[in-house]
């Protein structure tokens, strides 16, 4: 059960960070926290159920998260090079 509480805490921290930070890097970092909270929740449920299935899914999540981080950071770097800023408020005009 403790894992689930830890996961909920981690998710709350991530949500708080994503809502309050302005720098894209930090928002991104908070989102990663939320993602890992979800992974942790899966592990906790796997413990409770005594099954390994969810743990396999977590391995997939880690692998995909790695790829996603590469793409996300690449985007942020590209935006910074062009605009000299990563503030999500200033990037509002990207809405199209």
């Amino acid at each position: 059960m403790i894992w689930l509480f830890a996961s909920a805490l981690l998710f709350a921290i991530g949500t708080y960070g994503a809502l309050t930070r302005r720098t894209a890097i930090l928002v991104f970092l908070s989102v990663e926290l939320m993602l890992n909270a979800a992974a942790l929740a899966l592990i906790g449920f796997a413990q409770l159920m005594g099954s390994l299935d969810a743990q396999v899914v977590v391995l997939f999540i880690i692998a995909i998260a790695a790829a996603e981080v590469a793409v996300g950071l690449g985007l942020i770097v590209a935006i910074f090079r062009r605009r000299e800023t990563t503030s999500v408020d200033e990037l509002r005009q990207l809405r199209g």
Partner: protein
Amino acid sequence: MQETIFLPLIIALPLLGFVVLGLFGKHFKEPVAGWLASSLVLGSFLLGLYLLFQGGARWTLLDWLPGIPFSFNLDNLSGVMLLVVTGVGFLIHVWAIGYMHGDPGYSRFFSYFNLFIAAMLVLVLGDSLPVVFIGWEGVGLASYLLIGFWYNQRVNADSARKAFIVNRIGDLGFLLAMGLLWKMFGTLSISELVQKVEAGGYNPAALTLAGLLLLIGAMGKSAQVPLMVWLPDAMAGPTPVSALIHAATMVTAGVYLLVRHAFMLHGDACLSGLIVVIGLITAIYGALASLGQWDIKRIVAYTTLSQLGFMFVAVGVGAYWVAIFHIVTHAFFKALMFMTSGSVIHALGGEQDVRQMGGMRKYLPSTHIHGVVATLASGGLIPLAGFWSKDAILAYSFAYGPLLWALMMIASVLAALYSVRWYVLVFWGDYRGKEHPHESPPVMLWPNHILMVGAAGAGFMGLPYVIDYQNFLNPFLTPAIGDFALEKLPVLTEWILIIVSAVVAAVTLWWGFGFYQQKAPPWLERFQVWALEGFYADALFNTILVNPARSLAGVLLDADRGILAGFTGLGSLVGGLGRLLASLQTGALRLYMVGLMIALVLLLGWGVLR
């Protein structure tokens, strides 16, 4: 009768001219286009003459449509028509080389002109009715294109549309007749229809109905009352068009169609009587209306109506060869009359109002001679062409009934009057206009010289039997039309009729010559106001047909707009909804996050409490 590929070649020549001039007209310098078109028509004429001397020709393309061959037939009847169309057509082509000089649409004009000749030849030579119908529609198209030739003036375009729409009514009759004949006999080839009708075994009432429908078609094309309203307006086209299409050839197509189907009309007293009545009304209406016109071309247009009425009477009384005879002589003298008018218009720089003319005999001596011959031939002075054909119609009318003869006599008195009125207003008196008149160039004079010979002499091929017992035309046409023997009038009666007709025409011409040089009395002026409007036929048609149709169209248009407004309303509703939703996309990342979180909480809460 021989099968020969030369027969379609007659049609292909002018068609080639149409294609070449239509596609590459810009590359031809001015007179070249005209001479090319003219020589192609001359080629058709010579080829047709050659084949006619060979004793006619046939050409068949088997199974064009299921059960309907694509066939042409050159017999004596279609041969005479072919020679008129290409012969007079050639002369008018040459004349148009001079008349259309300097027109920006020079090549286009001759392209359309050749299209007309090709379509008319299809009409004349076609043996199966659908082929005739192709030509029938083709001449309608060419007529439409040429009436609206100067299309940048609205009145011309309107006249072209009017001609096309009125002709549609007639075309509907033609189509229905074809359908009915197909249902009755299972063939649409005219030569087979002749045999099937002779063989009998059909419902005579149905055949009468088919004849009536064909008659409606002929009335539309030949501008008979009540479908005559398009012809005077068709004068909006250039003068060569009026001479070729609306006097000499196309308008006689209806008469030709009826003569071709003489085997159906013959012996049907009801239908024949109807044709006589229509022709008689048209003959008198056209003549009276002509007497009130001031536009030189409209004068001649109404005289054409009147003469077409004469031809219908000839068909109605069963004198089919006389109808063709009158087509031939009329083609000569009416084309001459039109082209003389055209020469005068040309000389006066486009002036068409006869009140601005007068005294032309001093300025245009050659054209004046053409005018004299045209007037006398059209007025029926012995021994010019118009006299003999008109006299033949009068004689057969007398055999049909003395009352008809008396009414036709009135019509021919009026014919003499309108001819001489035209002549006096244009050529006598003092010149009333301001332009400086100049005689036409030789290219316009020579065709008129030749037509003048025809208008003077064409009558001798159809002399009455008391003078020439076996004239040329009657036995020549009989094998093609069918041998419908008409009883000959006694010799004495025939002579009396000839003398009466000749004397009346001569006296009327002489009296009219004096009368129209004086000032018009008040009763005549009142009459002319009526006649100028064609006795308000147009106004009547507008009231009972055009305006109701126009109001219906207005209602339908409004309804259409209403339905359309409903659909556009639906479209703008969906669009507005979309714009509302699009405003949610603000670009503020944290707002999106809040939305996500609220949704998460709601979904979780729903999942737990469920």
